[in-house]
């Protein structure tokens, strides 16, 4: 910046910035690291991966993971499948209605989860009440604030109307417009939305617990009551998993020379 200032003056803000960054980094890494140490330490001061082995071999783990994985995949498919065409339509035909829809998508953040859960229980048709898939509907709704914003940001970065008009004029059906033109051009936004939705499904506790479904977070909480090391080992594993997922998505994305755009929430 100010090249004409003396070096001592310019060095200070740089040092301050570095200190902030280090402090920020520590803020995130220290708890994670401590959690990891806690999960591998045995009482007498030796280290073992026993807690990890114990958790993975527990039959409850596989079941809970399988439930959460299915829920995550379905939720992603439905949330993206609904949001992309809807927000595209809002961009080209109903710019003014966009604000209203945006507000509606924020409601899940405002309404307490317990209220949402009870509301769900009351409004679901009977045949769904016995199925774990009813959670998908809850999760699609819960993911709306993130999916909407992510996709909205992605679409705002391109001239949607002109691109859609051009594609339609060249003979593309609406499906072809979505798959060949809109999708690829907001790919990073879609990846961002997928990532946030998966993270949400893998972390959601209140609703699934209240509705008595043993998803991964519910099972983890249950284990944690009797096996603290095991529970911490699980949370370290899910952290690593989410981190790997983020890496995967952004490496898929990098091939397109675009960065993952997580939500445009910042």
């Amino acid at each position, binding site marked *: 910046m100010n090249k004409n200032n003396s070096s001592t003056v310019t060095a200070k803000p740089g040092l301050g910035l570095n200190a902030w960054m280090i402090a920020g980094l520590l803020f995130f890494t220290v708890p994670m690291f401590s959690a990891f140490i806690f999960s591998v330490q045995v009482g007498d001061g030796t280290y073992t991966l026993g807690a990890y082995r114990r958790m993975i071999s527990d039959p409850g783990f596989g079941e809970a993971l399988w439930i959460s994985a299915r829920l995550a995949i379905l939720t992603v498919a439905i949330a993206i499948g609904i949001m992309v065409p809807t927000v595209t339509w809002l961009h080209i035909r109903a710019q003014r209605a966009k604000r209203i829809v945006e507000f509606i998508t924020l409601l899940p953040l405002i309404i307490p989860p317990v209220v949402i859960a009870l509301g769900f229980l009351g409004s679901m048709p009977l045949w769904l009440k016995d199925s774990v898939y009813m959670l998908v509907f809850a999760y699609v709704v819960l993911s709306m604030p993130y999916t909407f914003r992510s996709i909205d940001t992605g679409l705002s970065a*391109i*001239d949607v109307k*002109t*691109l859609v*008009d*051009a*594609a*339609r*004029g*060249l*003979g*593309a*059906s609406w499906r*072809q417009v979505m798959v*060949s*033109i809109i999708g*690829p*051009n907001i*790919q990073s936004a879609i990846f961002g939305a997928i990532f946030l939705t998966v993270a949400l499904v893998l972390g959601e506790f209140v609703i699934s617990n209240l509705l008595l479904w043993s998803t991964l977070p519910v099972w983890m909480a249950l284990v944690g009551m009797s096996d603290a090391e095991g529970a911490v080992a699980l949370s370290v594993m899910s952290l690593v998993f989410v981190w790997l997922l983020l890496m995967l998505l952004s490496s898929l994305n990098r091939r*397109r020379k675009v960065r993952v755009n997580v939500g445009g929430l910042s």
Partner: protein
Amino acid sequence: MTNKSGSAVEMINLQRIFGDVKALDGLNLTIKPGQLVALLGPSGCGKTTALRLLAGLDLADGGQITVDGRDITNVPANKRDMGMVFQAYSLFPNLTAVENVAFGLKVRGISEEIRIKKAKELLDLVGLSREANRYSHQLSGGQQQRVALARALAIEPKVLLLDEPLSALDAKVRTQLRDEIRRIQLEVGTTTLFVTHDQEEAMAMADLVGVMSNGKLEQIAAPDDIYANPATAFVASFVGAMNRIPAKLSSGKVEFLGQSVKYGGGSSATTVVALVRPESISVTPTKVNDSKSGTVIARSFLGPQTRLTVKTHEHGTHLHVDMASSDALELTAGTNVSLTITASTVLTDADGKN
């Protein structure tokens, strides 16, 4: 290229209303096969709306559109076979130039080999064969619009629709590309509707120029014809430069600047404004100060032509007079001149408008 014949287009009494704005208010337009028609008009007169209705990107509130006699008023955009080039850059950012050009063929299910071959031919036609594998952000504005043109032509459209494709480009590229579009259009023979608000562009390229105002077509004619014989005061004022001179109308004569000229149409009130082109006034130096004289107040050299600004003695109106530069040598600022109207008829406009 094929399609030498081109399609006939007819737009009949088209209406399009947005809230309280009548974007199109009974537009009638006929285009013969292979013609290039330029739609000219002020901002907001409905040019883009007309084009979008023809492309099917917007639907009419009334009226009918036919192509080769077939009613397409309610056919969706993707079934119309219209090639459109937009004012905004519209290349698909996720596709290379050649993939962009091939897109229309791809959605038609044409095999990759054939569509890439065709796309390369078209890139060749617009002079961009070397840029085939570039993405839109690696192309200049002019190159992007060339690719857009190639993409529109790739589907062998019934009609080529161009909505101010050159307006985002700088002057030099604009003239170059405009000549190129015309060359390609003549070569391919596609019926073309070209929207612009640049009259020079319209005059230079089109077989017919249609002047629009307030959602209607005021006049459609060949470029020289529309300049020489404007049908209405609006067209006269919009196309080319026009002097507005206070005048009186009596018994079929327009009287102004101490002269009377045959009335050629327009407002028929008694007090009117006579519309006279700068080249339809001739000036000669004089000593007399009367109603047909004025004083030269400025002179601008435009190459072969010189434009004088003359202030009339009668009303103090500022007039533009164009003349050969060789004849204007002595007419410096301050010279007293006598003004003679050389037009055989003049149009009039209602007084008070400007």
